[in-house]
């Protein structure tokens, strides 16, 4: 008898959870319904749908400063997961709902959404305002958000990738890292530094188009490979692509982390910040986390260099989280006003003064890197981050011209799926369950299907 009650007791919270989930879901769908309406007193209420990243939470914390300056505008934040956000905006635009006045969109999706006619063209609004200084936004980032010479979103913060290395371990081994290393050098160092207690290098191996294929695509490009040629023919089984992937897999197997399939950004951050990896090629924003003495054992011991190259000049990737205004909004003017405020120089000053200089959104504005306090707070990595952000070329990151704008991804709707499937097959290569050849043959087939859809 007692046992049955125990089983029941388990069942009740489960039911509750299901109910709560259902409520949360309907709540999500219903929330924001008030947005787009104009209140009696002439106050405009804006609804901003955003991904739940820390920088976005900072923005919410500081929105009162905007509201004080604009007493007739109120901004409501709705935080969502990336997938929910896409779903919500898709539905809103498809049904002409006008629920959202501002949305955050990743740089991969901006051109796709713009192509679908979901986003308002902001070129005029931004260029006409001299004070806003649109040219101060990093040019490569702007390029990635531009479709047919029109700018459809503004970067809130951005990042590239670079090589981070543990200077202590390098000194012990008597090695010096050049400012612009080649992959061959990095591989040699990694194999020399690899020991029982320290991995030579940490590189993402976790399946996913935005996980392993972020660094791996940049490696492919600098080895001279690409996903597609100019006429959208897949190039995945080309010798350059194969060589690059083989190089990456071998390097991880010989001198990388033990469990590549588990290893993504967070796991590498963990390894490097505990001094268990000598090198790491990943997002520039990682530097800020590695230099934070509270969470990292290697603060002050890290060196930074440009992402390793083979045949190209630069090999950093390019990512930004951006603010955009959906075509369907009823409050376009007020929305643009807020977007401009949140991406202005003034906002960066505000974050620095209110929340601390290390929390200023990086990688969006050139002028941010000229602020004395920011230079001080981010001395170790700010100059190199700026150099890389200015140097990468999202229009042609590889050796040959490509028909899309973007570095570590292909800006087509099919790429998420393609990258995901290929990366899952790569896990078998990491584990030694299959050879690279057949995996890339299948990848070539999948890529060709995706390429044919663009023709």
């Amino acid at each position, binding site marked *: 008898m007692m*046992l*049955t009650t*125990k*089983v029941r007791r*388990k069942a009740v919270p489960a039911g509750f959870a299901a109910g709560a989930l259902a409520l949360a879901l309907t709540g999500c769908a219903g929330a924001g319904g008030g947005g787009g309406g104009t209140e009696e007193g002439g106050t405009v209420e804006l609804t901003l749908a955003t991904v739940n990243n820390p920088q976005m939470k900072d923005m919410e914390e500081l929105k009162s400063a905007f509201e004080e300056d604009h007493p007739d505008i109120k901004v409501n934040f709705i935080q969502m997961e990336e*997938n929910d956000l*896409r*779903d919500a905006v*898709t539905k809103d*635009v*498809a049904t002409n709902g006008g629920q959202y006045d501002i949305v955050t969109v990743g740089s991969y*999706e901006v051109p*796709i959404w713009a192509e*679908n006619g979901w986003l308002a063209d902001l070129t005029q609004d931004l260029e006409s305002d001299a004070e806003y200084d649109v040219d101060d936004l990093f040019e490569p980032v702007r390029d990635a958000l531009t479709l047919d010479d029109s700018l459809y979103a503004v970067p809130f913060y951005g990042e590239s990738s670079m090589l981070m290395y543990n200077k202590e371990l390098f000194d012990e081994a008597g090695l010096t890292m050049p400012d612009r290393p080649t992959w061959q050098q990095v591989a040699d160092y990694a194999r020399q530094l690899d020991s029982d207690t320290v991995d030579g290098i940490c590189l993402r*191996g*976790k*399946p*996913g*188009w935005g996980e392993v294929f972020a660094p791996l695509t940049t490696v492919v490009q600098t080895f001279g490979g690409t996903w597609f040629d100019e006429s959208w023919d897949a190039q995945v089984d080309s010798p350059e692509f194969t060589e690059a992937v083989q190089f990456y897999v071998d390097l991880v197997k010989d001198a990388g*982390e*033990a*469990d*590549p*399939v*588990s290893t993504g950004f967070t796991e590498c951050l963990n*390894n490097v910040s505990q001094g*268990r990896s000598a090198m790491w090629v990943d997002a520039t924003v990682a530097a800020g986390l590695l230099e934070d003495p509270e969470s990292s054992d290697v603060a002050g011991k890290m060196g930074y260099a440009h992402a390793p190259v083979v045949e190209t000049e630069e090999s950093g990737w390019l990512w930004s989280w951006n603010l955009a205004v959906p075509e369907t909004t009823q409050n376009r003017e007020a929305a643009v006003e807020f977007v401009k405020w949140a991406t202005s120089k003034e906002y960066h000053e505000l974050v620095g003064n209110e929340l601390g200089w290390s929390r200023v959104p990086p990688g969006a504005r050139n002028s941010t890197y000229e602020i004395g306090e920011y230079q001080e707070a981010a001395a170790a990595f700010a100059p190199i981050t700026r150099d890389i952000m200015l140097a990468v070329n999202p229009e042609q990151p590889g050796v040959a011209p490509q028909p899309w704008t973007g570095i570590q991804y292909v800006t087509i*709707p*099919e790429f*998420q*799926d393609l990258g*995901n499937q290929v990366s*899952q097959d790569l*896990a*078998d290569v*990491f*584990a*030694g*369950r299959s050879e690279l050849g057949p995996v890339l043959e299948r990848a070539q087939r999948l890529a060709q299907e995706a390429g044919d859809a663009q023709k």
Partner: protein
Amino acid sequence: MTTLTSTPTTRRLGRPAAPAAKPARPRGLAVSRALLWPALATSIVLTQIPFVVTIYYSLQNWNLLRPGDRDFAGLDNYATVLRDGSFLSSLGSTVLITGSSVLLSTLLGLLFAVLLDRSFTGQGAARTLMITPFLVMPAAAALVWKWSILESTTGMANWALGLVGIPPVAWNTDVPIVTIILVLTWQYTPFAMLILLAGLQAQTKDVLEAAAVDGAGAVRTFLAITLPHLRQYVEISVLLASIMLLQVFDPVAIMTRGTGGTKTLSYLLYERAFVGLQVGEAAAYGVMTVLITIVVATVALRTLFKVFSKEGLGR
């Protein structure tokens, strides 16, 4: 409806012999039937409309990021599902993972149930501790296993293996299926244990005493008397655990990401819908899964009823 209220099944379930059981007054019956309609209508709306919508979606060619290209696709999505091969391999993975986890959970559950059935000091505390894994949320459990136990350099599992001289294992990369089965077994052993313990406690002591008087040893008593008695409890626990485990998603999403043969049907569906953004194709996978589930469930439910009816006859 009619069959439900008039077949002998209801009587066998032991409803008290109230006037309602006698179909003497057809008018009263009509009223009670009418009273059922709102509930029936609600359940039809809640369960069947989403299914019909899913079928409709499965006939559409619809990528979330290409809203302009949405059109009627006929059976193309089903052709893709059958041609692609990932459905069959996913079905295989699901059966393998569910089967092994259920088998191991039941065996371990039996062992722990027998141990916990003895009276000893701290029995209550031990029982509570044993049940805990089942109460942990699946996602939380997967995270604990990923970061604390199976982490390849700092995890407890590799540390323990190191003590006996076994080199560290890269769990998620090298043995993904084992990893998933390990986590699921850990989680569902308490479930099997609970049901089997209930079975053990329902066993009358007279029989065991009689066996002892007749000179049967502990092993013989267990094999010849306890185990047959537990049969129906084992059946229920296997059935319920299978139903729950068929939907497993969390550890796959958190630990192995569907690699190395761990792509279960629910993870495959998630991928088609949220990574592939192919709403039509995902819906077709969903419909296929429902069809197979209906077949399996029909067989399984028959077994379940057989178990229940046997129990009813035995008493």
